[in-house]
C-alpha cells in the first residue's frame, strides 16, 4: 500500500484527535468535588445557640478545653461565654473572665461592682467558630493548611500550618489563636472527630440547659434545622459577608 507523506501526516493527525476525544469528554474532578457530587451535599453542619437558655455556668468551655486538649489554664479557648450587663445609663459592660470557664459567680465586672438596681438587662452569649460558608481564614492561608470540608466545617492541618497568623488576623470573630503546645493555628471545629463519629460536640453534650445544639441544615426534618428555618434567628457580624453558620436565638443588638 502506498502512502504519501501528506497522507501519512493527515492520518496521524486524525488518529491522534480520535484518540484524544474520549479523554476530553471526561470532566476532571478534584476528590472533594467528586464527593460533593455524590453524597457530600446531604450534610451541612450548623449550630444553634439559644441565648435565653444560657446561664453562664461555663461547663461548655470546661468540656471543650478538656476534650480538645487546650491547656486548661492558658488564656485561650476554642469557645467562650460572654456576659453582657446593660445599665440604666446606657453603658454596656462586657466580660469573659477565663473565657467564662469557671462560670460567672460574682456581680463584679473587671473589678467594678454593679448595683443590681442599675441594671436594665443582662444576659450571656456563648461564642465559637461560625464555620462560615465564605471563610476569610481559609482564603488567606498561604499554604492551604486550613480548609473547608464538604459538610461545611473549617479544619486546620497541624502538620502543615506554618504559623504565620494571617488566618488569626482575618477572622472577624476572634475565634483563632495559636495552640500553646503545637504552635499552630487553632480553632473550634465543632468537635469534628466526634460529630463524624455520630456523637455530639463536647460543649453541646456538656450544656445542662440545651442552650447549644447542632444539626444538619440539609435535613428538613432535623429539629435544629426546623428552628433555624421557622423561627427568627440571627447571626454575628453578617456585614463581613462571611455567611456564618452559628445561629442565635434571642440575640441582642448590643452583642458584637
Amino acid at each position: 500500500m502506498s502512502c504519501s507523506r501528506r497522507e501519512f501526516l493527515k492520518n496521524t493527525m486524525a488518529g491522534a484527535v480520535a484518540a484524544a476525544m474520549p479523554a476530553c469528554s471526561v470532566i476532571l474532578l478534584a476528590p472533594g468535588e467528586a464527593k460533593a457530587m455524590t453524597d457530600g451535599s446531604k450534610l451541612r453542619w450548623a449550630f444553634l445557640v439559644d441565648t435565653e437558655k444560657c446561664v453562664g455556668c461555663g461547663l461548655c468551655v470546661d468540656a471543650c478545653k478538656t476534650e480538645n486538649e487546650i491547656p486548661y489554664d492558658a488564656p485561650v479557648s476554642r469557645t467562650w461565654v460572654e456576659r453582657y450587663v446593660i445599665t440604666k445609663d446606657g453603658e454596656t459592660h462586657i466580660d469573659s473572665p477565663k473565657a467564662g470557664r469557671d462560670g460567672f459567680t460574682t456581680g463584679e465586672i473587671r473589678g467594678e461592682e454593679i448595683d443590681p438596681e442599675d441594671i436594665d438587662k443582662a444576659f450571656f452569649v456563648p461564642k465559637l467558630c461560625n464555620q462560615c460558608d465564605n471563610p476569610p481564614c481559609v482564603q488567606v492561608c498561604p499554604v492551604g493548611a486550613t480548609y473547608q470540608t464538604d459538610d461545611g466545617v473549617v479544619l486546620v492541618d497541624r502538620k502543615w500550618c506554618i504559623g504565620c497568623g494571617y488566618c488569626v488576623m482575618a477572622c472577624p470573630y476572634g475565634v483563632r489563636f495559636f495552640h500553646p503546645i503545637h504552635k499552630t493555628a487553632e480553632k473550634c471545629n465543632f468537635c469534628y472527630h466526634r460529630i463524624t463519629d455520630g456523637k455530639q460536640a463536647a460543649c453541646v453534650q456538656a450544656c445542662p440547659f440545651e442552650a447549644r445544639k447542632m444539626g444538619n441544615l440539609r435535613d428538613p426534618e432535623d429539629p435544629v434545622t426546623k428552628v433555624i428555618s421557622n423561627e427568627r434567628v440571627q447571626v454575628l457580624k453578617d456585614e463581613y459577608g462571611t455567611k456564618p453558620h452559628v445561629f442565635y436565638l434571642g440575640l441582642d443588638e448590643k452583642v458584637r
Partner: protein
Amino acid sequence: MSADLVVHGAEWTVKELFVYPNEFIYWSIQIVMYPYMTGLVAGAFVLSSLYHVFGQKDLKEIAQFSLVFSLALLPVAAVPLLLHLQQPLRAMEPLLTPHFTSAIAAFGIVFSTYALIVLSEIWFVYRGYFVAQVHALRDQPGIGNSLRRSVYRGLTLGAYDVSDEALATDHKAAKILAAVGIPVACFLHGYAGFIFGSVKANALWMSPLMPVIFIMSAVVSGIALCMLTYIVIMEWQAFRNRRRGGAVQASEIRGAEADVVSKSARYLLGFLVAAISLEILDLIFRGYTAMKSWDILRSVMYGKDFMNIFVLQYTLGNLVPFILLILPGRTIKRTVLALLLVLFGVFMMRWNVVIGGQAFSLSFSGYMHYHIPIIPHSVETFKEGVFGALFVITLPFILFWGINKFVPSLGRDAGTG
C-alpha cells in the same frame, strides 16, 4: 504557666476593657520590620532605575550604589517573616504548596522574580568590571589574589567579550531589566500593602489605598536610606583622604556628592508629598464616612495613639524633614538629619499600621497595648523583641560590606553601566 505553655502574644499584650479571650497582638515588631525592609528594597531599586531607565545622568553614582544596596537589602526582607513564623522550619511551604487565594502565597514568586531581576541587572552592569578584574589579577602574587580571581572568573559566567558592541548590549540589557524591575519592585511592595489592606476583619487596615500608600512610602524610605548611606560613606572617604592627603581631593568628592544629594532630595520630596496626601485622604475619608468602626478608630487615632501618629509620624517624621529639605541653604548635616527623620517617619507609619491595627479589639469594646520585649528571656522574646528588630536592621549593612568587596559600587571603580 510553664515555659512551653506560653501563648503567643500574651507576653507583650495588655488588654483594656472587653477584648475577646483569644485576641492578642499576634503581629508584632517583625511584621513592622517586614514592610519596612521590603519598602527599603523597592525604594532603593526605584532610585537606581531613575538613572538606568530615565537617564538621570547626575544620579549615576548613587544609582550604582542603590542597585548594589538593594541586593544587600533583598535577603533581609524575608528575614522578619522567618523570625515571625511559629513554624520556621516550614518556611518553604508557601513555595511548595502555594494557596493562591492568599496574598502571602505570592511572596515567594514575586520575591524570587525580583531577586532574579536585581541579580541579572547587577551582572550586566558589572560584567565588564569582572572581566577587567580577571585580567588585572592574572599576574598578581598571593593566595588572596588568586582566590579573588577565581571568584571573578565565576562571576563572569564565562562571558569574556568586552568589545564595545558587547558592552553596549550589556548596557541595553541592564536598561531593560531596570525598566521591568520598577513595576516588579512596586508589585513586591504594593502587595505587602495588599496583605494588610485586604483584611476585611480589621477596620484600620481595610482600605484599597493601602497598597498605593505602601508603595509611595516605600520609595520615600528607600531613597532616604540610600542617600543617607551614600552621604555617610562619601564623607568617610573624604575624611580618610584628608588624613592621608590622598589623590582624590576632598572637595572633589563633596562637589559630586552635593549634586547627587540635591537631585535625589527632589525625588524624595515628590514621593513624600504623594505618600502624605494619600494617608491624609484615607484619614479624612474614614472620618467623613464614619462607619461602625469609626468610634473605636477615632479613640485610637486621636486618643491612645495620638503621640505615635500625629506627633512622631506626621510631625517629626514628615513635616519637620519636609521643611528641613525645602528651606534654602541646605547643608549636608541638615540633610542627614532630615533623612534620619524621614526614615523614622516611615518606620512609625509601619508601626502605626501594624501595631495600631491591633490596638483595638474586634469587638470594638476594648483596647490592646503592645509592650515590646526589650531584654529577651526566651527565643520568642528575642525574635519578637527589640534585639530581633536590631538584628534585622543591621543585617543589610553587613551584607553590603561583603558584596561591595567584589562589586564595588562607590567611587571610581564602580561598574560601567
